[in-house]
């Protein structure tokens, strides 16, 4: 018996993993990510000249402007005091170098810079918004520092963004913003993947039914073995896909990101990404709720597939399941905003909602270990019941053709099994 389940699992897995669909779906995720995060890396080498001539007519801003500019990737050649008088028109003198790309540009700081933070920059082509913002901030920042250090040295502290000390009266949990982000993205990913792989199981059942291969298989295999092999096979495909994604994101964060930041310092904001990366415990939570939710929903989807005679019929018959899945996705924002409300606690304990909601509360740190355990146990118990009922519906339905069964017929199938 075990060998038959394994043969079915293996076929399901290999046929799917080898298919064009799998390659496309698996590549599309990380590729999109790479396209967004990694494209600047590809263009980094061809970003043109980085040498910037700074003409400091104020005589005091260069000290703060230079490190700022270097931090965002420019090499600074300064032209100060004495040269200023010699060159009335520094940009005009260097326009040849700028045009043929040996020089990025000329930045002139003068009294207006001290007064209002405005400066003059001469470059060959229009600036990308990103570069412009970065340059403007460096100049404004150094002007501000200059002004504050003379007028109100103590106000400098404000520049660093201030600080907020939070006193928590009932310190049950510690919530970090990064956890919140993973809770949100993770539950969304759970919702998407559970729906995706559940439907994959359903379609596979319908395909076997409409192609009539099922009768050949059932002459040597028990229906429950076929169902189990199929669910395990599709589940293994799901884990493979998630694994590939996790690995690529991991590699990107560990190797790609530092290199990207080294090449393009102006993208420093991306470093925040590192802080969003989930901990091992959070990944285990994700895996646990993925597996629990997957077995629960795929058993339901297998039964729905067994009831239907065609893909269209299956699409209609799955409506109640889709609603079951959409409910947690809809109330997720509310639960995350108010994770301790009784609504959040109770809905996240409902087995059909728990994969998404309890995961979100657990990762963001608002669910106790007891609540997580209760949710997982609830999912497990419900899965056993659903698999038993679904298996019986599957067993009868898989060989039935003709009209879709009524609820009464379904009940008879379950009892007769």
């Amino acid at each position, binding site marked *: 018996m075990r060998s038959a389940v394994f043969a079915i699992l293996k076929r399901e897995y290999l046929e799917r993993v080898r298919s064009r669909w799998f390659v496309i779906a698996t590549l599309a995720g990380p590729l999109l990510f790479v396209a967004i995060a990694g494209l600047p890396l590809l263009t980094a080498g061809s970003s043109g000249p980085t040498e910037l001539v700074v003409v400091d007519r104020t005589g005091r801003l260069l000290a703060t402007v230079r490190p700022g500019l270097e931090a965002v990737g420019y090499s600074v050649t300064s032209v100060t005091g004495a040269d200023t008088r010699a060159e009335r028109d520094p940009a005009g003198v260097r326009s040849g170098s700028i045009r043929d790309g040996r020089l990025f540009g000329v930045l002139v700081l003068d009294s207006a810079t001290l007064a209002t933070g405005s400066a003059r920059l001469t470059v060959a082509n229009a600036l990308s918004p990103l570069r412009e913002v970065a340059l403007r901030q460096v100049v404004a920042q150094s002007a501000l520092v200059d002004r504050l250090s003379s007028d109100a040295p103590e106000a400098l502290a404000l520049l660093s963004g201030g600080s907020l000390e939070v006193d928590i009266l009932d310190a049950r949990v510690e919530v970090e913003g990064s956890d919140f982000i993973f809770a949100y993205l993770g539950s969304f990913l759970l919702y998407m993947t559970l729906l995706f792989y559940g439907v994959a199981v359903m379609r596979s059942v319908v395909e076997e039914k409409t192609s009539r291969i099922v*009768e050949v298989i059932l002459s*040597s295999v028990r229906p429950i073995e076929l169902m189990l092999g199929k669910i395990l096979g599709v589940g293994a495909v799901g884990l493979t896909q998630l694994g590939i994604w996790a690995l690529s994101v991991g590699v990107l964060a560990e190797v790609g990101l530092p290199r990207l930041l080294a090449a393009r310092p102006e993208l420093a904001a991306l470093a925040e990404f590192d802080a969003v990366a989930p901990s091992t415990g959070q990944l285990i939570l994700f895996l646990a709720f993925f597996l629990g939710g997957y077995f629960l929903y795929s058993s339901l989807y297998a039964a729905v597939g067994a009831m239907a005679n065609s893909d269209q019929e299956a699409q209609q018959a799955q409506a109640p399941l889709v609603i079951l899945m959409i409910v947690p996705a809809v109330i997720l924002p509310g639960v995350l905003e108010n994770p301790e409300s009784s609504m959040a606690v109770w809905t996240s304990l409902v087995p059909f909602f728990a994969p998404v909601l309890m995961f979100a509360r657990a990762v963001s740190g608002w669910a106790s270990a007891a609540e997580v355990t209760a949710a997982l146990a609830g999912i497990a118990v419900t899965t056993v019941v659903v698999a038993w009922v679904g298996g019986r519906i599957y067993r009868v339905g898989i060989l039935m053709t003709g009209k879709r069964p009524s609820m009464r017929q379904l009940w008879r199938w379950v009892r007769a099994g």
Partner: protein
Amino acid sequence: MTDYAIRLRGISKRFGDHVAVEELDLDVPRGTICGLLGPNGSGKTTSIRMILGIYVPDVGTVELLGGTPDHAHRRRVGYLPEERGMYKKMRVLDHLAFIGELRGVRAAEGRRRGGEWLERLGLSEWGDRRVEDLSKGMQQKVQFVATVLHQPDLLVLDEPFSGLDPINQDVLEGIVRELNDQGTTILFSTHLMDQAERLCRRVCLISRARKVLDGDLREIRRAEDRGDVAVEFDGDAGWLDIPEIEHAREEEDGWHLRLRDDVAPRVIVERALAAGVELHRFEREAPRLHEIFVRHAGEDAATEAGRPPAAQITAAAR
């Protein structure tokens, strides 16, 4: 004591109000080719599904290869359902290996045997193609290979030759005979009586969910022999209108005559000579399965098979 591959005792199956099979008894001794005959919708497929344990009979017992139709015994059976599907996107050899694996043949061994069978059936260059690229006839051959790949003791074929062209039909019939010579028991269902006559040692006729008749085909035909004769001649058929002939029927291969009781066949030859027709053929004719079926189940039941009754001329009508 005879060893049986299949023994059914009083099995019945209903679906709601519809009675699919009613109190069916059937013995299939090991080593025989047995035909399960009956018109469409008479209960052949349901019976076969009960033999294979896909359906559980409402009442009655099924004995398969000396035991219950459980997993271990079912593995020794090769089953080709009437509505047989394949995984269209799979490659032919992968498909064969998978079906073999379900029945306990290791994947590599299944591929090897599959390759040999494909070569034998002239499909060797199709092993790495997808199933959907094959013609319908080729798919049917591949399905047959999948059925016999694990060298079953019992082959159960539900309408195995339907939709095949005569050449491929002959090829598969030859293989069925050969497997039977090697000791494989074969049960196949068909609504084509002449095909059963060619292949079967035993037959079981069912109609409207009930068994009509079963047993050794030769014995049945002997018991059912009514002294019919077949004649071929040139000339006017008017001489057939004589009291000695109860019933005359013309088919492509000549006339088939039912004689009245106590009429010696010799009399017909004399009548033909007297009528002056040129007689080419005259022979005693064993009853045909179709005729036996009609005799036992009635003409209505037989026409349910979708086979129009042959052109008939009765003496009385003319």
